[in-house]
């Protein structure tokens, strides 16, 4: 009996090893780094305590990044959930060829983010891009619009690309959730005289409650910390217009070499993400008795 008891722990050894080395140690190190005035390549950095964090509050770029992160995350998630919901409802119907539609609609998520970025970069190109061409050809606008180069439009433009890339996640979750709602609920509603809209509000949405909550948590983590698309398309520009917290973390480290400051921003990002996740979990626990 004794011999068998350590088996499960033994099986865990590889993953624990990997996680401690590649996640645990770096996490501790970056936390430590945030307390020093550390620059890449400079030895013996001075210990500065919370100075890096204090600087964040007075840093206008940080405040802009925080606002950008909030706006980016909010608009992306709302759009993704709405699109995912709409598409799931359409694809979940008993039409022929729904599998083909479902597969085609899931595809934006499948490819590399770099590919999505460079294709959309081309579409957004002010002079040769398709978008401006179509807008001018149909007479909707007169001059070429600077989608990624003007501070007012840059963030919106990357939001569109991100929503395009990630809405399939919402669609997958909601599709799975829709299939978990028992037919009897709809039949009961029909007997009570509910029309399509009413059965959606009173059967579908409540039935999706748990799935939607899980989806929101997952999407929040992915979108709030998202990096690739914005970095490749705008690098946070022009003039920090599309710089989210994640982008700022990276730029401070690898463009300005302020590793200590960057670490502080990164830790802040982590704390914000964890707090929001805990809030979501708390809400879902409160929801559970009603489920």
């Amino acid at each position, binding site marked *: 009996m004794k011999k068998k008891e350590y088996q499960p722990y033994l099986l865990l050894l590889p993953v624990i090893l990997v*996680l401690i080395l590649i996640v645990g140690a770096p996490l501790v190190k970056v936390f430590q780094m945030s307390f020093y005035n550390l620059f890449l390549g400079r030895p013996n950095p001075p210990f500065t305590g919370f100075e890096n964090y204090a600087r964040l509050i007075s840093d206008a770029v940080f405040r802009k990044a925080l606002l950008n992160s909030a706006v980016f995350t909010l608009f992306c998630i709302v759009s993704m959930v709405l699109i995912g919901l709409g598409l799931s409802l359409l694809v979940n119907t*008993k039409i022929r060829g729904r599998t083909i539609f479902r597969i085609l609609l899931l595809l934006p998520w499948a*490819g590399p983010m770099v*590919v999505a970025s460079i*294709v959309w970069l*081309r579409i957004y190109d002010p002079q040769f891009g398709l978008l401006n061409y179509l807008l001018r050809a149909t007479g909707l606008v007169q001059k070429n619009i600077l989608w990624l180069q003007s501070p007012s439009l840059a963030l919106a433009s990357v939001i569109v690309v991100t929503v395009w890339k990630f809405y399939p996640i919402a669609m997958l979750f909601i599709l799975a*959730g829709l299939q978990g709602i028992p037919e009897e609920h709809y039949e009961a509603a029909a007997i009570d005289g509910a029309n399509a809209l009413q059965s959606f509000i009173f059967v579908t949405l409540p039935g999706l409650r748990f799935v939607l909550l899980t989806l929101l948590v997952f999407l929040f983590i992915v979108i709030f910390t998202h990096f690739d698309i914005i970095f490749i398309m705008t690098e946070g520009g022009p003039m920090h217009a599309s710089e989210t917290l994640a982008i700022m973390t*990276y730029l401070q480290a690898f463009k300005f070499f302020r590793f200590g400051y960057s670490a502080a921003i990164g830790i802040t*990002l982590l704390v914000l993400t964890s707090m929001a996740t805990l809030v979501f979990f708390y809400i879902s626990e409160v929801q559970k008795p009603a489920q």
Partner: protein
Amino acid sequence: MRTYKRVWIYSILIVVTTILFFPYYWMVLNSFLFAESSFVYPPSLIPKNIQFGSYIALFKDPIRPFSQWILNTFIVAITTAILCIIVGTFTALSLSRFRYRGKLAVGLSILAVRMLPRVLLVIPLFVLINSIGLLNKLSSLIIADLTFALPLSIWMLKGFFDSIPREIEECAMIDGCTRIGAFLRILVPLSAPGIAASAMYAFIFAWNEFINASTFLSSSDKFTLSVGLRTYIEQHSVAYNEMMAAAVLTTLPVVILFLILQKYFVAGITAGAVKG
């Protein structure tokens, strides 16, 4: 279903799918044009001449070792997938087939790893890898990608293992099999589709991965496709069709894998997300 309702649904779906699929169509279309017509204005929506010139130019590009990039990306992705499966299977076995103290904590910590921003971890990883001297080596990328692919792989594997009844292994053990023997000879072969799905997911993840690759790799001959693709946009006078051809070739393998996998994704998410 009433006919008019069906017509509505089809119409909306066709319009929406066309719009959403369009960027990929645009990418493929432009890869088949050739240099002169890339800056044709107005841009054409329908192919007039299909040529493979861009693809040939892609492999002959003197400053971009595209075939080397394909090889690098493949090495990273397949190694990550294999290691991910090995480590993940052990872990999922432990989580699925045993009951012990701290099991919940372990499960939650693994999931928590998924929550960590990769931007955050890339900074200390860069410093650590630099100090070991593994910078600009594919092995550092494999290790980093492995760690980020593990949580979801473990979750998928655990789901698949959970779906196979324990009685089957218990039968084998009554017949004299050891616990581990039962795992290897019964459980693993039965979960083969699930293991394949997890491997493919890890492969896709490592293939598409950008931030670790672009931070750890600095010389052109070590680039993966993601990093290499990005070099096209840094110069404006680049042959745009060559870039699209490169994009098509980079996307094709993972899209094919994804098509095979998508059935399992829905199943895996159903198992985890919907509590019934």
